[in-house]
């Protein structure tokens, strides 16, 4: 019974955490830089590498399982505004009183198109299709046998266009995303080996949504006021991320409700890489037990290798020309 509960809860927890592994993008929009985020993806396409993203937390089972995830994700621009990401996560589960289990989650691929960029208002939007490929991971750690398609919309907005009377709010930026996860099959049907009964395990459709609220110290120093702080602080972006999923279809009798986490933390942004550390705070008992943590080392490949693997395969990386100033 305990094991079946754990196996039922693991995919729910993984849904939350796997969406956390989708971080990406060296993202400039006008004077705004949106850092790569850990919980919710950012709204740009870019050449970058998250290696690794490490998270540790306890699942929402009655007897919580300790879970450690180590992820890697590589993102590549095909054109200036279209990119593909591929990622994988290795999971280690330590259920109380039971043998531990390890293995890879399903491989994830994301096709993303940045279709709107408004530099003067620091506004950007992208559309993506994320695909979690079924049967590419280990069932023992909760990898599903079916493929899940998640069309997703992303947006980012910086508040650098606020008037000078609100100058201290200008370093604020927000990002948001909403997606609809569609499994490739509606249910898994199996036979209970003890009773011989038919077991139907529905695959719900989920609404997945998340975002971030950021305060950019680099923006504060370069655009609002130079407080002449020690250089370390001028590279920090305090951030709160959130990530939720709610079953919205084919969830009858599954007992699955809304789950999610809120992740307060900080990102240190350098010229070639960034380092992030965030807490994982579950919003309810089904989302986890206690506070977890995650960390990420993220490389800006477009800055490290600007003339080779860090540039789009087709097209130029920059619109060269004498700058033109608007009003």
């Amino acid at each position, binding site marked *: 019974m305990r094991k079946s509960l754990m196996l039922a809860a693991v995919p729910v927890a993984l849904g939350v955490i796997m969406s956390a592994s989708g971080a990406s993008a060296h993202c400039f929009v006008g004077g705004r830089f949106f850092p790569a985020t850990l919980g919710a993806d950012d709204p740009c396409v870019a050449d970058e590498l998250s*290696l690794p993203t490490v998270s540790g937390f306890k699942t929402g089972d009655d007897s919580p399982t300790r879970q450690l995830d180590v992820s890697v994700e590589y993102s590549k621009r095909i054109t200036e505004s279209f990119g593909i990401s591929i990622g994988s996560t290795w999971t280690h589960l330590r259920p109380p009183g039971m043998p531990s289990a390890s293995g890879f989650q399903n491989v994830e691929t994301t096709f993303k198109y940045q279709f709107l960029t408004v530099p003067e208002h620091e506004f950007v939007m992208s559309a993506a299709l994320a695909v979690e490929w079924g049967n590419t991971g280990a069932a023992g750690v909760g990898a599903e046998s079916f493929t899940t398609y998640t069309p997703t919309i992303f947006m980012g907005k910086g508040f650098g266009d606020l008037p000078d009377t609100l100058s201290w709010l200008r370093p604020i930026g927000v990002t948001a995303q909403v997606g609809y996860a569609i499994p490739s099959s509606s249910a898994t049907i199996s036979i209970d080996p003890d009773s011989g009964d038919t077991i139907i395990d529905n695959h719900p459709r989920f609404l997945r949504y998340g975002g971030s609220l950021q305060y950019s110290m680099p923006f504060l120093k370069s655009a609002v006021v*130079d407080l002449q702080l020690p250089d370390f602080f001028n590279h920090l972006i305090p951030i709160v991320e959130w990530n939720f999923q709610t079953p919205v279809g084919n969830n009858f009798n599954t007992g699955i409700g809304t789950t999610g986490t809120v992740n307060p933390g900080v990102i240190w942004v350098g010229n070639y890489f960034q380092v992030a550390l965030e807490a994982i705070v579950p919003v309810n008992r089904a989302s986890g037990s206690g506070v977890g943590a995650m960390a990420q080392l993220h490389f800006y490949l477009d800055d*490290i290798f600007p003339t080779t693997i860090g540039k789009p395969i087709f097209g130029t990386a920059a619109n*060269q020309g004498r700058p033109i100033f608007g009003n």
Partner: protein
Amino acid sequence: MHATRFVTFLLMLVCGGTLAQAHAYLDHASPLVGSVVSAPSEVRLWFTQALEPRFSAAQLRSSSGAVVGSGAVDPANPKEMVIRVRALPPGKYKVKWKILSVDTHRTEGDFGFEVRP
């Protein structure tokens, strides 16, 4: 063995990074961003990377929006831009800059300062 390969890869990335040029950010400026000063004779901007002079520019505007000065990359230092001005009357000013770093990454930004007698 696997750990050694992993560390080697990371070192390759980071060491490669020291050879490359990244996006250029405004590091600091004179007058300081957001400061109050007496009439400066120039506005100077220091960036984190070298700039492409032909594709980088800066403008100084008064609170009415009038352009009171234009700047270019300092020939003596490709990381600096300078806007030379006559004595600025008291008021609020805004500096807008758009630059291209030497590896073709474009960035832009603006900041203000105030001149008081």
